[in-house]
């Protein structure tokens, strides 16, 4: 609890001259550094307050009835001290309970009756009122700071208590399309897309329990039915004395859209690359040719195998000529992939012919102890085709007289 | 999308059920047809081992994430007799091809990550993961 600074505090007495002199005397006897000012009427008091605006709020001690109006008019019609611009104490001519209640309901922090005993306590009452005023100011400033922060934020901020929204900052209002009135007391999961509600509930609970620290994504549905993606974190707080949840989230809709489009593009690229990198050609009825070119890594080998096998089934091909003339290097890995492909094709009921095995490649394969098994091999594509045609029962003859 | 599921395995029908769940979860994750086949087959093998040797057990499916990778994790566990020599069981050639359910090295080849813990008299736990490429 902060200690009141021992600098002088201004006090504005709004009383007639005689009473004011008496009261001033009381304060001067007190050892606190009071700075007493005086105004005899409402009008002059208001004037003074205007002139001294911007300084630390003075304590105003005003008579209930002044020559030109009720002292309570200085309060400006508010109902609680929280709404006041300065702390106010009302002086009553007699111990009228009704007037006292009226004063307290109009923003005054205390009332003192100008009977003998009580009035001498005024300096002490003044100190107590100032304490309370300091406390009110601190709380008010904290709230104003929070709201200013929350409203200027590019982040959605909300408070949920007993499953209802109790606070929703401007960003959230704008993003959701709902007004503050519509959001207040809305069920906390109403904004969340129905399909994501369970997930959000689970993740929020995990985060509040401390079992999860990473923010989680989900969709909200705006007032006009659009879908937005958000990334949220939640934390436990106390709000107006009870447990509540403070949530904050970022709008990641754009990012999600870009991610989606990126994925699509990558997928399209991959597919077309797949087709390019696995050029399966039907060179004859029931004969497929696959001229492999370039580097064949694990991923590509996988794609090649899938594409080839699917094409075999699609075309009903009984012979597949796999030409490896253009393959950069044939090591154990590549050879194993080739063997796998051939075995799988054979399992489907198709015969494979390997062509284009260069001398160095043959050497490597023998040295590595690789056994291409009973896979027939031929020098090149043409010879592979001849083999295939013969297998299918064709007889290949050169026309008489041709070169 | 289903993120997690646990099932009991006690008979042939449960093996089929487990395969289906594995396939569906793999599908939802966006894994291709061949990967779905690999996962179903691995599940079939492991679940069959449970039915054959332990009588009953459990299978646990979980979607897992590592950095930006997503994948399916499957754990098959039982409190059966356990495998006396896991290393031997995991060696190629231990399985007769087209052979009797033991299929562990085969299942390992179908997956990206494969872990097995077994203790005689206590039981066996096999966990495998297949990542989305």
């Amino acid at each position: 609890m902060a200690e009141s600074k021992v600098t002088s505090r201004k006090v504005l007495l709004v009383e007639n001259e005689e009473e004011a002199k008496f009261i001033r005397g009381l304060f001067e006897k007190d050892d606190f550094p009071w700075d007493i000012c005086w105004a005899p009427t409402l009008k002059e008091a208001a004037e003074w307050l205007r002139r001294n605006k911007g300084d630390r709020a003075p304590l105003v001690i005003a008579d209930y009835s002044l020559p030109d109006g009720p002292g309570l008019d200085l309060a400006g019609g508010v109902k609680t001290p929280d709404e006041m611009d300065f702390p106010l104490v009302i002086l009553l001519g007699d111990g009228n309970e009704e007037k006292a209640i009226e004063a307290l309901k109009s923003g005054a922090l205390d009332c003192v009756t100008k009977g003998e005993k009580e009035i001498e306590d005024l300096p002490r009452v003044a100190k107590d009122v100032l304490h309370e005023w300091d406390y009110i100011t601190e709380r008010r400033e904290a709230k104003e700071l929070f709201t200013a922060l929350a409203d200027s934020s590019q982040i959605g901020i909300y408070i949920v208590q007993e499953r209802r929204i109790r606070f929703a900052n401007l960003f959230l209002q704008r993003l959701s399309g709902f007004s503050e009135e519509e959001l207040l007391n809305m069920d906390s999961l109403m904004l969340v897309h129905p399909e994501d509600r369970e997930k959000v509930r689970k993740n929020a609970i995990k985060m509040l329990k401390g079992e999860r620290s990473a923010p989680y994504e989900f969709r909200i549905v705006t007032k006009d039915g659009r879908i937005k993606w958000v990334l949220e974190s939640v934390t436990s707080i106390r709000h107006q004395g009870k447990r509540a949840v403070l949530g904050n989230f970022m709008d990641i809709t754009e990012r999600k859209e870009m991610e989606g489009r990126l994925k699509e593009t990558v997928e399209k690229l991959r597919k077309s690359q797949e087709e390019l990198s696995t050029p399966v050609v039907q060179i004859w009825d029931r004969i497929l040719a696959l001229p492999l070119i370039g580097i064949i890594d694990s991923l590509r080998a996988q794609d090649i195998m899938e594409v080839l096998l699917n094409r075999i089934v699609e075309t009903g091909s009984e012979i597949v000529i796999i030409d490896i003339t253009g393959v950069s290097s044939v090591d154990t890995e590549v050879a194993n992939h080739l063997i796998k492909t051939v075995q799988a094709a054979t399992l489907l009921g198709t015969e494979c012919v390997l062509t284009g095995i260069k001398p160095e490649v043959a050497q490597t394969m023998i040295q590595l102890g690789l056994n291409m098994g009973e896979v027939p091999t031929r020098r090149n594509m043409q010879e592979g085709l001849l083999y295939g045609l013969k297998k299918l029962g064709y007889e290949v003859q050169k026309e008489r007289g041709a070169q | 999308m289903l993120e997690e599921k646990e099932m009991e395995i006690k008979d042939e029908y449960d093996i089929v059920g487990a395969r289906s769940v594995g396939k569906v979860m793999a599908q939802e994750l966006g894994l291709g047809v061949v990967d779905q086949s690999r996962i179903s087959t691995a599940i079939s093998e492991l679940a069959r081992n449970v039915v054959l040797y332990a009588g009953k057990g459990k299978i646990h499916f979980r979607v897992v994430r590592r950095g930006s990778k997503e994948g399916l994790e499957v754990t098959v566990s039982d409190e059966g007799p356990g495998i006396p020599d896991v290393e031997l069981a995991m060696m190629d050639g231990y399985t007769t091809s087209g052979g009797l359910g033991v299929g562990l090295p085969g299942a390992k080849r179908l997956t990206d990550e494969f872990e097995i813990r077994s203790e005689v008299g206590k039981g066996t736990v096999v966990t495998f993961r297949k990542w989305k490429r």
Partner: protein
Amino acid sequence: MNSSLREVEEMQQEQIPILKIEDFLVTSIQIPLHDKLALAFQEDVLRKIEKTNAKGLIIDVTALDVVDSFITRVLVELAAMARMMGAKTVLVGLRPSIAITLVEFGLNLRGIYTALNLEKGLKLLRKEVRDSKL
């Protein structure tokens, strides 16, 4: 799902249908073959081979989406037994994804011919029968 499978199985008084085309038998596996069903299937096939003196058996596995070591054994055994009774076995309609899985797993279909579809399967059997007569 489990209970409906059991119901289907109990309904299978006729088990898996086996047709006769020319000198051969043709059958299609549409549902998962577990223990009892697999055994019954093998018996049915062998009995029918004997009855019809079939020279070949075509098994359509288009509908199979998982082929594990169990079903591999069932098929390999069936082919071996059929062979002893003078009939060759051809598997047709194997899915590419299954073929890849089988190769990677390390399972092989010993003693079983394969063809892309029924038509090619019949062609293959006709040729085999012709050749064996030479």
